[in-house]
């Protein structure tokens, strides 16, 4: 049977990006995907009549512009459209909006607290400083601090120089920023609880921590370090849904002659005398290559798709201890019309914005307490968008698609697997929550798709439904991600590689893990590098 140069497992956006870079470098790559559709969690699904759902990830910002350019994604049909700011709606019928126009935003914050309007400037400046610092390391391979290889020592030195270059005050602020909770961090700037809540949301999205848990300030950074067309921190929609990201990457992959097999998952990664030889699919087929790249989560790759005898028990233990707890759920809703939020007082612009239903730090934290006790938040934090207001291709004329992201949702209900009753209960909690803010909303519903961690794991393969393929805590960042000693995309078996978000720098539809893995593979194969490295912006 034909032997490929490399087999990539999983056609999520990182897998496709990885395959595309390898193919571009002249390798003969096979991309295998268990689902009949491509894209993993960056996908557009047509599940009800003429509606298109971005049914997992739903907005785009972190995708590295270097990758966009290197794979020429524009040519292959990716168009990212920025959307109009954000608004946080409070229960008492008020709201706090953030517009593209900084002056408008300032006037809006003044309405709540003149002091905070000034603090917002300091806040944005400090966050941007942190973004500019971290962005330099996203498209680089993390050094191994325990190694004495020149390459690792040089990279450590590189990071150290950049860090020192921040200057004394900023260095101290950076250490504090990385170790503080988002609520403590915000307390140092703001007095308005509504403003704090509107910022704090980004500190917990997808994370198994509460706004008062130290370490959440970094998670906010993880959501702020992207950009749209060079406008830093901005978020946008991929025209046609998030599938456009994966599809454009895949078009690039095929254009360079890559092969794709969709519809049968990998049963096992085959290892012979300590070397990877290929993959055996669930349908019985076998495919061969000396290089196998897994875009699956760390536990799925090593605990489900490999034979334990091919791995060290210590390594397996570390895989079992990998923190990948799901904390989010999602509702994708087909609407007959636009829901009216009385609090917005007919401000049509804000219907295009990212809507947050929350108004205090305490409510956010209490939502987390429910998760700790193994139930979905009874008063959940909702991050809600109507992409069809900006991108008409998402729904039939006059109708709309609403993406509702919900925090917190546990991977198990009080230690037991999710049942359909649980799922319906979760759905009702969320729909009622929205109805409270938008009376009559329920009457507009044409169809609802409910995504609990169970669906995310079963359909997309995200273990425990964790949207980042592993929690973004200090024990799993940079050289600790996914496992200390394995942070350079190389698996524990020769020829086995990892390119999923379980690896540095993590999830969020960045494409960076896929790209970094490709660079490492090409380096080992002594092939010309096709992958951008470092920070090529401005």
């Amino acid at each position, binding site marked *: 049977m034909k032997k490929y140069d490399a087999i990539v497992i999983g056609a999520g956006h990182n897998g496709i990006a990885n395959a595309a870079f390898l193919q571009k470098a002249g390798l003969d790559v096979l991309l295998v995907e268990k689902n009949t559709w491509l894209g993993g969690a960056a996908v557009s699904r047509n599940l009800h009549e003429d509606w298109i759902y971005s049914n997992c990830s739903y907005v785009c910002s972190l995708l590295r512009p270097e990758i966009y350019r290197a794979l020429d994604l524009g040519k292959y049909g990716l168009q990212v459209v920025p959307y109009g700011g954000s608004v946080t709606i409070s229960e008492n019928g008020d709201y706090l909006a953030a517009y593209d126009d900084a002056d408008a935003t300032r006037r809006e914050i003044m309405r709540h607290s003149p002091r905070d309007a000034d603090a917002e400037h300091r806040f944005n400046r400090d966050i941007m400083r942190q973004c500019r610092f971290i962005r330099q390391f996203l498209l680089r391979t993390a050094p191994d*601090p*325990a190694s004495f290889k020149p390459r690792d020592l040089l990279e450590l030195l590189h990071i150290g120089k950049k860090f*020192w270059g*921040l*200057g*004394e*005050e*900023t*260095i*101290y*602020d950076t*250490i*504090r920023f990385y*170790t*503080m*909770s988002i609520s*403590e961090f915000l*307390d*140092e700037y703001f007095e308005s609880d509504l403003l704090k809540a509107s910022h704090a949301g980004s500190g917990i999205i997808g994370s198994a*921590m509460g706004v*008062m*848990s*130290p*370490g959440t300030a970094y998670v906010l950074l993880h959501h702020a370090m992207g950009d749209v067309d060079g406008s830093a921190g901005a978020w946008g929609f991929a025209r046609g849904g998030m599938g456009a990201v994966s599809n454009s990457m895949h078009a690039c992959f095929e254009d360079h002659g890559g092969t794709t097999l969709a519809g049968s998952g990998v049963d096992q990664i085959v290892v012979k005398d300590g070397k990877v030889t290929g993959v055996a699919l669930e349908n019985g087929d076998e495919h061969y290559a000396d290089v196998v790249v897994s875009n699956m989560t760390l536990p799925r790759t090593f605990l489900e798709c490999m034979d334990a005898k091919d791995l060290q028990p210590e390594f397996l233990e570390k895989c079992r*201890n990998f*923190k990948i707890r799901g904390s989010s759920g999602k509702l994708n809703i087909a609407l007959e019309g636009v829901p009216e939020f009385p609090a917005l007082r007919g401000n049509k612009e804000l219907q295009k914005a990212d809507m947050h239903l929350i108004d205090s730090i*305490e409510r956010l*934290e*209490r939502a987390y*307490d429910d998760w*700790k006790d193994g139930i979905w938040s009874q008063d959940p934090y909702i991050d809600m968008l109507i992409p069809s207001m900006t991108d008409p291709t998402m729904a039939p004329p006059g109708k709309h698609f609403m993406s509702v992201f919900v925090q917190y949702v546990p991977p198990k209900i009080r230690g037991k697997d999710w049942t359909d009753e649980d799922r319906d209960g979760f759905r009702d909690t969320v729909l009622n929550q929205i109805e409270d803010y938008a009376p009559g909303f329920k009457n507009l519903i044409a169809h609802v798709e409910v995504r609990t961690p169970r669906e995310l794991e079963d359909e997309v393969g995200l273990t425990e439904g964790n949207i980042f393929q592993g929690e973004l*805590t*200090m*024990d799993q960042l940079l*050289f*600790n991600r996914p496992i*200390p*000693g394995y942070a350079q995309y190389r698996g524990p078996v020769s020829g086995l590689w990892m390119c999923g978000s379980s690896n540095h720098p993590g999830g969020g539809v960045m494409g960076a893990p896929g790209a970094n893995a490709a660079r490492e593979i090409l380096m080992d194969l002594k092939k010309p590098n096709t992958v951008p490295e470092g920070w090529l912006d401005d």
Partner: protein
Amino acid sequence: MTKKAIIIGAGHNGLVCAAYLARGGVDVTVLEAADQVGGAAITREFATDIRVSAGAHLLYALDEGIRRDLALERYGLRMAAQDLYTIALHSDGEYVSMADGTLGGPAATEDDKLAMAKYHRQMNRFAKIIWDLKGQLPPRLGTTDSKDLTSLGKLGLAIRRLGVEDMREFLRITGINVYDILQERFDSELLKGALSLDGTLGTFLGPRSNNSVFCALHRYNQGKDFAIPEGGMGTVSTALDGAARAAGAKIRTGHRVASIDMDHDRACGVTLENGETLNADIVVSNADPKTTFERLLGQRHIEAGFANRIHHIRTRGCVAKLHLALDGPPQFAGLDGEQRGQRLVIAPDLQYVEHAFNHAKYGEHSARPVMEINVPTVHDDTLAPAGTHVLSANVQWAPYDLKAGWSEAKDAFLTICLDTLEAYAPGLKAQVTASELLTPADLEAEFGMTGGHWHHQELALDAFYMIRPVPGAAQYATPVNGLYLCGAGSHPGGGVMGCAGRNAAKAVLAGQ
């Protein structure tokens, strides 16, 4: 000519600082508001003829070097009990004991015994790294100063020396939470609950809050097991007082400082509440940073960015202190007389501790609190009349800024504490002849630490070493010329170590 120094506060750190400064040839005067020295390390009556360590109640961190240098034994420091180990109480008497990494008691499983040995070995190695920082003047970052770079280099080397496996583990866990690392290692819920207390006691963290591993290491690194001084913690302070006086320091109790005085851009002395003003070349404050800069000095004397940092120091105390007089020895389920004298912990499982913490986040006290208990009278008959026993317990969480207000809620919380104890020591309530509950608000009132916080501010990665108490004052000298800090708010924090006081003295002497 000899320099004159004034030290504000005769807490243990103030006294240590005084002793070292005096030995360094500085003319030192210590001013203490209370009528006895010691700050939160004191022994005092809480009921007729019945005395207790009213603040800190276990000695486990006092720096060996200080103890030797100042010959504290010569000034009366004696231990009533040493090498106390920890027993995690269980209402059915199915307790587990932890002595130097060895598990005992009915609830100890074989797997947990093995896991504990490994955990103990690793934690001690990791803790050593933090321990070795305690005697250090923290470096500044971003400089090219060789002294700064050397101490950072030493730290890096120490971490390297752990060897590949331990180094990786150290870098993995130091930033996270005890819940995760305990779940990885142990089976017994009781054991995990009790160990989680090491990471959360005295802090505003639950087992699941990141930073709690760091706090556990900070406690662990204090190396040796727990001890109880004869005559209570006050003995430590009187010994330090003796050593300081012997070295030539003047110590005046009952003198409350009202303000730190400035001569243009430098501190030149203090004014007492009775109006008396005292001049000095150097003013060293054992008071917490907030009190020092906001109340005693006044924000107008510091630059805005620094004032902002001081203002946002987290000083929300969350531990209450419970003192009970008992007409007989408490009968803890499953424990014998010898065990009764150990460090007893009520933290039956991680969930229980996490729930106890949840309340604190919203300004409520725990409905079912966790406790660290000891019964000093088992070892020390100088505290109370024969036959009478004293129970001393740290109880959390009891946040300083209780929504309901402590005057309202105090009695209710005392009842909760007694009911909790009753569940683990049946009949205890009937033995109580007198009781005292000190909320963080009471601790603030009695000892003067803002928020009633043990460490003068949260002990956390964002407030440790070169960023404790705040950037710009981490080397004990402050932006105000002639004004130094020597309290628990500075590196390496509280816990009756004395390190902050000695380091501050070194910094002052180096600055001359």
